[in-house]
């Protein structure tokens, strides 16, 4: 079958081909989301996989591993979990004595929103974000570097609303070049403005 490309289809394709502008905020969100997932990746699983790659690994040892995992699972579920960690009975369950607190039965409660943060500081040794959402605490929200030369990223939980913030780069306050600035009335210097909408 012949390809359907003719002059008109060429013109259609040309009209749809121009590339949109890069969006630094979207890029930052992707990298922060990925970084957060990397930080959560279970190191134990990596160790198990490395062990399985060893030449001495056999089917018998796989069975042993599965049995051990099962046993550990039973023990930890019953013995090690604190009451807070256990699954609460849901309101729908016949045995429920306390209804579970969920977003569904508290629809009006305002919740903190995870906000991905990135900052480019190639030569920096330490970067954190300080703002009214963490009481300008330099130790509350450290950023970590994404790759050896990549941007610094973190995800901070912020209540919906308008917030002021800055980055602390090797002990020096720096405003976010990608965000609007304003005068911070409490500290006298410039601060960046973060608007967080209700999810």
């Amino acid at each position, binding site marked *: *079958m012949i390809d*359907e*490309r*003719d002059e*008109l*289809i060429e*013109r*259609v*394709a*040309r*009209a*749809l*081909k*121009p*590339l*949109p*502008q*890069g*969006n630094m905020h*979207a*890029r930052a*969100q*992707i*990298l922060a*989301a*990925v970084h957060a*997932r*990397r930080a959560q990746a279970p190191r134990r699983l990596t160790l198990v996989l490395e062990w399985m790659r060893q030449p001495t690994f056999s089917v018998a040892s796989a069975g042993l591993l599965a049995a051990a995992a099962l046993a550990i699972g039973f023990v930890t579920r019953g013995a090690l979990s604190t009451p807070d960690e256990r699954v609460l009975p849901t309101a729908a369950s016949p045995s429920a004595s306390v209804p579970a607190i969920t977003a569904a039965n508290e629809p009006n409660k305002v919740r903190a929103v995870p906000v991905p943060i990135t900052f480019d500081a190639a030569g920096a040794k330490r970067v954190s974000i300080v703002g009214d959402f963490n009481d300008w605490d330099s130790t509350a929200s450290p950023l970590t570097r*994404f*790759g*050896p*030369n*990549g*941007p610094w990223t973190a995800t901070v939980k912020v209540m919906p609303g308008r917030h002021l913030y800055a980055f602390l780069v090797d002990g020096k306050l720096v405003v976010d070049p990608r965000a609007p600035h304003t005068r911070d009335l409490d500290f006298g210097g410039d601060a960046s403005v973060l608007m967080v909408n209700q999810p």
Partner: protein
Amino acid sequence: MNEIDASVPLRAKRGEAQAFIEIVDFYYPRCLRFARNMLSDDQDAEEAVQDAFVRVHDSFPRFREEARFDPWLFGILANRCRTLLSRNRRHRALIEYGEVPITAAAPEEEYGADWAEEVRMMLDSLPAEQREAFLLRHVEDLSYEDIAALTGVRLSALRMRVKRACDTLRARLTRVEQHDR
């Protein structure tokens, strides 16, 4: 340059963060173009692209070293777009053409804003599977074999989808042009 150096996805698969950043920087505009053309909504398109990149990252262990990266990435993105389309279909009974954002630069200069708008309207009116096949073939310039691999649709059916999309666009746009003269 339309395709990234083959070593970059392999480095990303090995967990090199810098390689993943290179992938995002290289493909983000193309992915956003595809998603916007598919979804006709800036926010949905950004959501689909961001989601797709996170899934790409999570799925790298399953990326075969001998495979080409472009079709694999666009397969994941096309999937996200389909999911959003079906979600939106449930929530939105009517899409107004006037909402379609025109943020790209070039086509207006060449044929005028009206032409670009007509093209987008006509594209929106195509069934989603025809629009997807048309965009992958004629805008993203993927081969039929690549599109078949990423969509799981047989080659003959795929060619038919593209042909139908072209026929519809040709008929409607020709009518528009005749009407404008």
